[in-house]
């Protein structure tokens, strides 16, 4: 792998940019790997990357039925924060946020991490109490957040309307170290680093069956032929239920469509991320100038990667009340992604009833922020059989009643 640097740009400028090589290889699958990861989105690629970097396991294939980062990694609103209420969540999301800070240097790939700060607006008395509680919990967890009053909200985000017709802004939970990153670059950076370690990123290779012998995984059948493996990691977000069915178990997960949209690009007007959970809307401005807007989920199971239009209407209505200046913006694009939602709105990183099969799913409506932390923890789980970060996120926690209940803290917006 040729390193990217200012020097490399200068060198290539003198030879018509003929020296750039492909960022990752496009190999044919081998007959057997030590580890197969299904799903080359952010979480799958990060899992493979940390398997190699932290544990020296590089005989790894990452199989992707579509194209690299073409699922939810390319469909989210790129928000990164770690202001969760419960201890296990704070631990894994804060690990993730801290890994984002050095990701560009670690991967030698500019992921454009921008710690611009995230405000979660409190617009009801319940939210004031809830967010103050979260701020106190975060203080104990070592996550830097603070409760701020409406004047401070206005100072941080001048385009906000504090006295909305339905819900006035009463304050907010402020995480100065939260922010955004370039979502495609996260997938591409990990893919390049994995490929450099000798791992195989294999696109357009759909897994059609999971082969087992005596309760243990031995390989997978794919559209590019059968491939054997010792360990299998299922990191497929919305299609986790489909993969679990192939492996012969069921998950406490339902897949629904979550939508987002972006406006036409405008001049810089907002340098923080604002989330308004009561009215269901959240917004930030991309480096290109587009307002990036997150919408709501459908209430019913759906695999179509498109959602119902009335959710867009609700989201836009809420945003016009909160940010009156967006009323005259044209919207450029709208899309949907299939998110895998668990009963307690917390993820599953777990061993499964099949030996050698591990599952990383259930990130629901907020997986992007978790990509590096999820990969870090999943790699440790797959390499060593246990990880302090994943201990509480077992798929068997439900039967024991050990929920990590984030549905109040995080059930709506990400």
């Amino acid at each position: 792998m040729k390193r990217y640097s200012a020097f490399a740009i200068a060198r290539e400028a003198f030879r018509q940019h003929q020296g750039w090589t492909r960022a990752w290889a496009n190999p044919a699958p081998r007959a057997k790997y030590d580890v197969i990861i299904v799903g080359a989105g952010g979480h799958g690629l990060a899992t493979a990357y940390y398997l190699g970097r932290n544990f020296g396991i590089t005989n790894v294939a990452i199989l992707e039925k579509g194209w690299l980062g073409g699922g939810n990694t390319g469909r989210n609103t790129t928000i990164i924060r770690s202001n969760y209420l419960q201890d296990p969540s704070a631990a894994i999301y804060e690990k993730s946020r801290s890994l984002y800070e050095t990701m560009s240097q670690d991967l030698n790939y500019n992921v454009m991490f921008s710690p611009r700060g995230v405000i979660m607006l409190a617009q009801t008395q319940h939210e004031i109490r809830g967010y103050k509680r979260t701020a106190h919990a975060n203080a104990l967890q070592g996550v830097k957040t603070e409760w701020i009053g409406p004047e401070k909200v206005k100072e941080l985000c001048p385009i906000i309307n504090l006295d909305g017709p339905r819900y006035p802004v009463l304050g907010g939970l402020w995480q100065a170290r939260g922010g955004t990153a370039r979502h495609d670059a996260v997938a591409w950076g990990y893919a390049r680093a994995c490929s450099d370690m000798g791992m195989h990123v294999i696109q357009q290779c759909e897994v059609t069956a999971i082969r087992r012998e005596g309760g243990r995984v031995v390989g997978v059948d794919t559209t590019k032929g059968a491939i054997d493996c010792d360990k299998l990691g299922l990191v497929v977000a919305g299609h986790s239920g489909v993969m679990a069915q192939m492996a012969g178990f069921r998950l406490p997960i339902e897949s629904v469509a979550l939508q987002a949209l972006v406006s036409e690009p405008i001049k810089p007007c907002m340098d923080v991320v604002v989330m308004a959970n009561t009215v269901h809307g959240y917004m930030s401005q991309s480096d290109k100038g587009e307002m990036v807007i997150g919408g709501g989920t459908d209430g019913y199971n759906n695999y179509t990667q498109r959602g119902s239009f009335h959710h867009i209407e609700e989201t836009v209505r809420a945003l016009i009340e909160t940010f009156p200046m967006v009323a005259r913006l044209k919207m450029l694009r709208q899309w949907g992604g299939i998110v895998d939602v668990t009963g307690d709105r917390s993820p599953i990183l777990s061993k499964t009833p099949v030996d050698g099969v591990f599952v990383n799913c259930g990130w629901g409506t907020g997986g992007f922020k978790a990509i590096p932390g999820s990969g870090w923890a999943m790699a440790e789980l797959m390499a060593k059989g246990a990880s302090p970060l994943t201990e509480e996120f077992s798929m068997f926690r439900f039967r024991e009643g050990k929920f990590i209940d984030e549905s109040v803290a995080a059930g709506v917006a990400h």
Partner: protein
Amino acid sequence: MLTLQCPYCGVQADETDLHAGGQAHLKRHGPGSSDDQFEDYMFVRENPKGVHFERWRHAYGCGKWFLAARCTATLEVFGTYPAQTTEPPQEIRDRISAKRPGWTWGDFA
């Protein structure tokens, strides 16, 4: 927009008039049942890419709960039927079989 016909009042209702109520035909086991059965009832869900059975409520209409057979991969609706049943009626199953031969869902086929 998804539209479903309410089997009680016959109205072809938009999804904004309806409330989605999750998976249909959940089986609640009685005293003496195992932890596995309780977990199945409480948390584990069918999550197929294809034929699915769901509970819906005609919230801004007659207010009654009914059940629907739907495809989650195409959003095609196979039919709706009253909620006072423990399994999909034969007529609905036949209609699904005509369009999705060999379908299975939980204990049904």
